[in-house]
């Protein structure tokens, strides 16, 4: 297993005032368990506020867990929802891509080679991209750049938090195809988080449906979509406008 999560918990406490006792915690993640096999995609789906992003942030190392265990067997990297907010507007693309390599003490020549490799993987022309700034790109191109940034570290696991939610459908299709190609080529393992049930079905091998900090149903994508067991899964599926 590349990712193994057991009974993960994260509570947020809202402080009312300096002296008053804190109120009941918001149980953002309340006992979540799942595992992801190498080279497969685990889709985590749920409505806003269900805790799916908190899971992503804990597994990414951005947030501390309160309780439970998780193990990640391999290098991981992240791609976030908003390709406008997640790329530093004052850095050129080469700077954005190579920033994390500086930490791992990669030589400048090697860093350049890795950036070229990553940009080619996301089907962008490295020569035409590296010296430009994020505002010079469309939303779809920015998301490709965000994926390239995750790839420069040659990760084995990608945590993708709503990677296509802010994109037009035609752009979304290109990014989903790209993610599938990359997975096949590099046998990457994905944790794919989205509120869109159709996109999750398209991408995932296994799906966890999350509600109020808990996974209410977890099964193969086929099972979840053809014979949902939990009433909440059924409600979600019925709410998708058929087309």
């Amino acid at each position, binding site marked *: 297993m590349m990712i193994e999560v057991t009974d993960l918990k994260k509570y947020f406490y809202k402080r009312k005032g300096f002296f008053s006792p804190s109120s009941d915690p918001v149980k953002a993640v309340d006992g979540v368990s799942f595992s992801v096999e190498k080279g497969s995609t685990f889709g985590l789906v749920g*409505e*806003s506020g269900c805790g799916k992003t908190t899971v992503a942030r804990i597994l990414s190392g951005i947030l501390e867990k309160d309780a439970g265990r998780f193990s990640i067997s391999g290098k991981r990297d992240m791609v976030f929802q908003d390709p406008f907010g997640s790329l530093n507007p004052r850095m050129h693309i080469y700077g954005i891509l190579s920033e994390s390599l500086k930490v791992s003490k990669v030589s400048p020549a090697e860093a350049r080679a890795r950036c070229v490799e990553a940009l080619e993987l996301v089907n962008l022309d490295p020569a035409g991209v590296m010296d430009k700034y994020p505002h010079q790109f469309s*939303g779809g191109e920015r998301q490709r750049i965000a994926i390239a940034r995750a790839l420069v570290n040659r990760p084995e696991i990608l945590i993708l938090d709503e990677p296509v939610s802010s994109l*037009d*459908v*035609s752009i*979304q*299709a*290109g990014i*989903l*195809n790209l993610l*599938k190609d990359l997975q096949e080529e590099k046998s990457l393992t994905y944790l794919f988080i989205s*509120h869109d*049930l*159709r*996109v999750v*079905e*398209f991408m995932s091998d296994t799906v966890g449906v999350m509600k109020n900090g808990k996974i209410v149903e977890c099964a193969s994508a086929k099972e979840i*979509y*053809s014979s949902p067991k939990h009433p909440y899964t059924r*409600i*979600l*599926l019925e*709410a*998708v*406008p*058929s*087309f």
Partner: protein
Amino acid sequence: MDTTLRIDSLTVDIGPGRVIDGISFEVAEGRILGLVGESGSGKTMTALAVLGLLPEGAVIRSGQVLLKGNDIVPMSPEERRRLRGKKAAMSFQEPFTAFNPVMRIGEQVTEAMRAHGMSRAGAEKRLAELSRMVKLSPGICRHYPHELSGGERQRMMIAMALSCGPDLLILDEPTTALDVSVQKHILDLVSELQRRKKFSVLFITHDFSVVNKIADDVAVMKEGRIVEKGSKDKVLKAPGHEYTRKLIGCIPRLGDTRKRLPV
């Protein structure tokens, strides 16, 4: 069939750029037209042109915008202002930014009615009616926008747009920012109100599945042009234009067995 809105060869420029390029379509009385397109295609600009609310710098080069037969293009800003609310009203995409954050929701809705000459007592009474109409308790009107959920804000936005009984309701991506279960309630609400009050709707969205659920007719917009229009069944089931086919084809569906999406 009478038309509530007829747009005829409308062309709008902003600076050197053409944002609407000779579009023509109509919204028939009592029907819902879904105007579909990707970002930057000109959907919202079209809506703003209908309301006479184009941003500064936008110039209508040619064409007509007929609301119940009256062309609003040659009208003065004052004349257009009087039409807004009664002839056409709009619910904006992001109800969180569209509402004034420091004013109670109810005051904002009554403000609109008072501006159209309604008495304070009349507006208060109508406010209670409106909130019940969008299935909210009138008590919600005392709250500030941030205290409402996304779905409640969108309902109040629709209530505000309906406050003066418009002939045409324009909804700009009313469900885009909402969860699917909330989206379903909003769509059901719009269908139900439309059937009861018999107004016409210009429904702007990028989502074909939403159009399929709610619209009678569809117009597909790309780069300022209408590339295809017709009844929903025709456009969605047998799209005539390559762009429409492409847009419909690249959406994953439930039960999709394709390994890749056409781009």
